[in-house]
């Protein structure tokens, strides 16, 4: 579906899983992030910038913003993935080296937010995942960070959950309504 722009496909067809697992186990700190806006309202993008300022300073964990997905371990995906951006998003994620990590930020990134069923958007990362599978792009780990916009602390918390430093607090809860 997504053309490679005439370049040869550099990804080997049979990927060595042992190498991948080794790389994944080494990925505990100092992850480099690439900020990918897929048509968001810029609320989450401003919060991502907040995280990088000296006030919240994620560089104390070694997290650094890079300008190219080829250098990145993690993609900070904001926005509900508009139809126009699909091809670019798939190309950006494909350009990342394995192991690929994705942090879906904000209500839009997780479930589409208020654009969950419009004609112009996919409605968040879960729907993009199917397209990525069709394009043969594998993502190794995804962490969903709800919030509208996400708090800078929530992004730091999400990154910690992604790296396995913290256990997620959210649990699926199903309760029966009780008579008062």
């Amino acid at each position, binding site marked *: 579906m997504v053309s490679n722009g005439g370049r040869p496909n550099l990804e080997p067809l049979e990927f060595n899983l042992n190498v991948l697992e080794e790389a994944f186990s080494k990925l505990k700190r100092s992850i480099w992030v690439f900020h990918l806006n897929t048509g968001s309202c810029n609320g989450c993008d401003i919060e991502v910038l907040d995280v990088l300022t000296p006030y919240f300073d994620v560089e104390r964990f070694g997290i650094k913003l890079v300008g190219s997905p080829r250098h990145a371990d993690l993609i900070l995906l904001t926005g509900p993935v508009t139809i126009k951006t699909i091809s670019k998003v798939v190309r950006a994620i494909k350009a990342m080296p394995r192991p690929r990590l994705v942090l879906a930020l904000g209500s839009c990134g*997780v479930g589409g937010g208020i654009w969950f069923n419009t004609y112009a958007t996919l409605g968040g990362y879960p729907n993009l995942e199917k397209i990525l599978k069709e394009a043969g792009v594998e993502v190794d780990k995804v*962490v969903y960070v709800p919030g509208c916009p996400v708090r800078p*602390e929530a992004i730091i918390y999400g990154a910690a959950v992604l790296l396995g430093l913290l256990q997620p607090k959210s649990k699926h809860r*199903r309760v029966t*309504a009780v008579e008062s």
Partner: protein
Amino acid sequence: MVKFLKMLSISVREGTATRKYPFESPLVTPEFRGKIEVDPVKCVGCGACTRICPPKALTISYEGDEATLKYFVGKCIFCGMCAYVCPQKAITVSREFELATWELGDLYNEVVHTTVKCGICGKSFTTVKLIKEVERRIENKVPEDLLEVCPECRKKLTARKIGSKVVGVSGE
């Protein structure tokens, strides 16, 4: 040349600006709106919150003899409108924002209600608790035969009554 040394005195005076967030409490004000909590004791399953919710993060679905009020945190925009419209004040806005998880299913919260079946067509149309609440609020002034009848059957029933009164026709 040593102009930059001026910075040292300033930094000594001002101290460290950086928050030590994971090791200290977050900067959450009392007005901050986070994840909502639905009280299963107070909730009657009227669905007022599902109608006001802008991203339809709150939905109510009827399946069999169960009505499920589903709250998907992933879609919620934390506007607090549901807590504002709730007639029973069953929804409270908490200050919880550390919601990150790798499992999408963890972001669902559900409250299950038992439903009432229509006395005529047998279709489940509302929750037991809502009918009791309506009865309580209007002090048992509902006609007994209309209380457990779904809106569509009630329409037919009323039309039939009017028909028999005005025209003197009974039946359909």
